């Protein structure tokens, strides 16, 4: 053990601990079991279950091990006749309200033979029929304490089960009120959906007015499922494991830049049982979300049949072996000239897949290498930085995040697109650090805070300048860099009044927000892709850069996919280009510039080239029209690596292999093999080399001179006068197109899962309730959104977080129209009720 060490004795054994550790943690790290049902790793103790009481020499009372910190020379006794008796009587209280026939059954050891008779317990129920059987912490503790009887008569609480929600079910009659779910929901996830309700014998876990989790705004992150020691909180639709072997397959979730390590569980026959977070860098409840654990499961379940390679010949589709399909592909590719071949990687491909495709392009000497990147986020950022000779930061370590004293989120919903950052920031925020969110749209991370600045859509620059105007005079940091006087000069020419009217923010709101930004130094500013996915993004960035510099703050983008960072690196070294919509590509196909196309993944493309190869886990969308279809393994088998928000390259833990797992080629493996047939040997970097690529210093030298950027002249400000506010015709809305990451390999989660549709439906159009009422629109009503580019059919959904005159849609980009609207980011639309 490196670093300072505390020496103590547990049960007469000399052990070492890190200062600050609890006795429970220390005992555990030395393999000493202390029963505990309410502790949560890394969180302040709750000390509610009283099962972890230990004796400490010299202390008059027994103390909960979860709450007591180790001290030099401490002598701890974790087990004795007396302690176990005390624990037993404590546990009996819980057991008197928990179905306990199975727990106390003297025939437990023979249960497998006896249970067939069904007469073992007087009533059905108990562990025998419980999904948690065999994997239950309450069972373990009962076992350890050898509880044989319960002094109180069993009392069934007879409470109603919660079964209305997708993915999560709650049986309050199994709840032992350990409080873990409540704490993980508020203290770790910052959702605060659950609470103890009632008192005394009536106490239960509940939500606001006992609403369903969906109505209580639960994010379905699943953390509560992870911590519940009983089956009181259970994931729905999980295959029972009883008696069957379970195989685990760790993988890196490809769905967002948090790159959580998840674990897929299969039962013997190779059927997917569940997907859950893996405890790798911390406890499992600190990673994973609805998308990764439930959405992905539903997508994979919807694709029951494993896809076969297919080759089209004479218009007919023929199943083929991978070898045959690859041979056909190699033969076909050889027929085209290098400049006629295009290669496209979609947004969710693995890092090795992307690198392999780039290498293949190089080997073919094809100069049309694209990545499909509808956000275009880092492209714009890079362009801006190059033009202005500045450089924003790209990623921070955990420690660096915690150094922040004030956090400012601009157009980013960390809970949805940067969870790994959010989980670090939340304890700071709830601990009282300054916290401000600027976002005209929906933002889960702005709930439960009174510092949500909602400017008019597209008026972020005005809001930021309104803040900057206040800060220039108030901030005490000496940030007098080059250009400061010019900045002061331009700012003084901007009328505060006008900035307020344009941004839709009141002076008092801006004052308060400025005070928050100044409340702690250093400040950390995180901005999302929506700040740049709008017409006047340069002005937004200029204002943000100046604000950051004035505050001496760290300013960085939140990329929603870690791959973006790798793309950025690749672009510097290879001929990779990004395409944000299919237009240019379609045109190149139409006029014959590109005749053969290799698509890795899926993308919406209206124009089919002469020859099309699609490599994707599922035969969907574009793959339907391909001449050759090569099935990739899914992300479960790909293993990684993935690049995360902290800029690290993450590999999944050792893969044990799924049952019946013939060794299938990885995404990159297929490309390497194809290259082999074309006579080239591809060499991909190992994950260590990949880490080196990621770590390469980039952009400007660190000794670059910091400088303020000149402000655009007032009439160049974003959207100035474009939407004069009072003259809005009824039914006209400014639409913000949000980010929707709820899809995998071309399949939208909402499309295959009714549960997911209840959570985040890409067909929802969010409106302000009062405005909807004034337009005579109800929740659930179907409407047509008319836009200059085309019409969308959507369903009304209400949120008080939406301002009047604004609508939010979170489209899945499965058509060129949606892609186009997404690219615009902001547009005007009219609502028509569908008759």
């Amino acid at each position: 053990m490196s670093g300072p060490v505390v020496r103590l004795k547990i049960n007469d054994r000399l052990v070492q601990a890190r200062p600050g550790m609890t006795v429970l943690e220390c005992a555990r790290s030395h393999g000493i079991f202390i029963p505990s049902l309410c502790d949560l790793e890394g969180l302040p103790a709750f000390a509610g279950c009283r099962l972890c009481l230990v004796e400490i020499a010299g202390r008059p009372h027994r103390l909960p091990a979860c709450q007591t910190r180790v001290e030099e020379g401490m002598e701890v006794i974790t087990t004795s006749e007396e302690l176990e008796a005390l624990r037993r009587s404590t546990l009996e209280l819980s057991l008197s309200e928990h179905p306990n026939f199975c727990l106390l059954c003297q025939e437990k050891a023979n249960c497998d033979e006896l249970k067939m008779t069904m007469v073992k317990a007087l009533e059905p129920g108990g562990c025998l029929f419980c999904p948690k059987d065999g994997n239950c912490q309450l069972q373990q503790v009962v076992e350890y304490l050898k509880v044989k009887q319960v002094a109180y008569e069993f009392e069934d609480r007879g409470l109603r089960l919660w079964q209305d929600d997708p993915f999560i079910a709650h049986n309050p009659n199994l709840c032992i009120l350990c409080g873990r779910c409540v704490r993980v929901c508020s203290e770790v996830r910052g959702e605060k959906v659950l609470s103890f309700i009632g008192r005394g014998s009536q106490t239960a876990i509940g939500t606001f007015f006992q609403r369903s989790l969906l109505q209580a705004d639960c994010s379905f992150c699943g953390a509560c499922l992870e911590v519940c020691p009983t089956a009181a909180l259970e994931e729905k639709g999980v295959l029972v494991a009883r008696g069957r072997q379970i195989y685990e397959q760790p993988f890196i979730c490809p769905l967002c830049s948090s790159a959580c390590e998840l674990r897929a569980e299969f039962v013997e026959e190779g059927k997917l049982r569940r997907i859950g977070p893996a405890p790798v860098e911390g406890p499992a409840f600190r990673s994973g979300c609805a998308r990764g654990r439930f959405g992905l499961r539903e997508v994979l379940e919807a694709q029951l049949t494993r896809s076969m390679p297919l080759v089209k010949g004479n218009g007919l589709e023929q199943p083929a072996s991978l070898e045959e399909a690859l041979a056909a592909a190699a033969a076909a590719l050889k027929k085209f000239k290098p400049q006629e071949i295009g290669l496209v990687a979609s947004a969710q491909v693995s890092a090795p897949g992307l690198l392999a495709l780039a290498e293949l392009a190089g080997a073919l000497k094809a100069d049309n290498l694209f990545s499909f990147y509808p956000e275009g986020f880092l492209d714009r950022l890079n362009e801006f930085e190059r033009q202005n000779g500045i450089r924003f930061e790209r990623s921070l370590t955990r420690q660096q995040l915690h150094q922040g004293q004030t956090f400012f989120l601009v157009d980013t919903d960390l809970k949805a697109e940067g969870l790994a950052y959010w989980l670090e920031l939340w304890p700071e925020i709830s601990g009282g650090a300054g916290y401000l969110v600027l976002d005209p749209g929906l933002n889960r991370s702005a709930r439960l805070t009174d510092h949500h600045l909602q400017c008019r859509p597209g008026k972020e620059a005005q809001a930021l300048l309104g803040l900057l105007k206040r800060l220039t005079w108030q901030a005490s940091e000496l940030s007098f860099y080059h250009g400061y006087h010019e900045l002061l000069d331009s700012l003084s020419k901007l009328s505060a009044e006008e900035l307020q009217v344009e941004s839709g923010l009141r002076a008092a709101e801006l004052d308060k927000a400025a005070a928050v930004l100044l409340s702690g130094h250093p400040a950390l500013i995180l901005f999302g892709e929506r700040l740049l996915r709008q017409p006047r993004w340069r002005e937004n960035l200029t204002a943000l850069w100046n604000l950051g510099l004035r505050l001496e703050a760290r300013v960085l983008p939140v990329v929603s996919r870690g791959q973006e960072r790798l793309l950025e690196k690749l672009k510097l070294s290879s001929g990779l280009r990004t395409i944000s919509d299919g237009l240019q590509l379609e045109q190149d196909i139409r006029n014959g510039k590109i005749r053969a196309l290799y698509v890795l993944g899926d993308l919406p493309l209206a124009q089919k080239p002469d020859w099309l190869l699609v490599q994707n886990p599922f035969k969907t969308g574009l793959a339907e029209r391909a001449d050759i279809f090569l099935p990739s393994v899914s992300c479960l088998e790909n293993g990684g690596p993935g690049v995360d928000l902290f800029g690290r390259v993450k590999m999944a833990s050792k893969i044990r292999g799924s049952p019946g797992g013939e060794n299938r080629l990885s995404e990159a493996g297929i490309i390497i093999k194809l290259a082999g047939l074309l006579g080239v040997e591809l060499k991909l970097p190992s994950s260590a080399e990949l880490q080196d690529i990621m770590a390469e210093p980039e952009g400007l030298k660190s000794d670059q001179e910091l400088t303020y950027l000149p402000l655009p002249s007032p009439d160049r400000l974003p959207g100035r006068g474009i939407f004069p506010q009072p003259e809005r015709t009824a039914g006209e809305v400014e639409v913000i197109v949000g980010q929707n990451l709820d899809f995998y390999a071309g399949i939208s989660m909402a499309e295959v899962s009714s549960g997911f549709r209840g959570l985040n439906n890409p067909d929802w159009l969010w409106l302000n309730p009062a405005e909807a009422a004034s337009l005579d629109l109800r929740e659930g009503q179907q409407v047509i959104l008319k836009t200059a580019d085309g019409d969308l059919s959507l369903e009304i959904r209400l949120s008080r977080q939406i301002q009047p005159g604004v609508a939010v849609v979170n489209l899945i980009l499965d058509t060129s129209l949606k892609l186009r609207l997404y690219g615009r980011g902001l547009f005007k639309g009219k609502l028509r009720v569908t008759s």
Partner: protein
Amino acid sequence: MMKNEPNLKDRLERLVASIPAGRSHLILFLHRVQQEFGYLPEEALARAAEYFTVSPAEVYGVVTFYSAFQMKPRPQHELVVCHGTACHVHGAEAIHTELARLLGVEPGKEDQGKDVTIRRVNCLGCCALAPVVVVDGEYQGRVTRNSLEKIVERLSGKK
């Protein structure tokens, strides 16, 4: 609730304005709301969560923790039917059923959103007067079918 009480929002806002936004004032605020409305409307709890930046679930937890807080409007009239032994012998059950019939309240269900509740108690300790019904706190002894009708008439008049 909102529909029946158009000024609920304004009354709430007045209360909000009278109390500083610190978390520690949450309970005081809830008390004031209950004083003002006689119960805690859902809107008030949602507003409290917003104003004190506490989660709605926490507010609900607090409210259900203290039995003094009530989340349903108290009915305007309360009838208590004694079911003690003496009253039982004198036909308390029939009286209960009849009262319920006259008032159009489902027996046994105490809160139907009507402005009347009928409660059953085990014994009021005035067995000499059996059968006993308490009307808005007023004891009525030796009730008969006739006097029941009068009671109900009076209540409807009072409404």
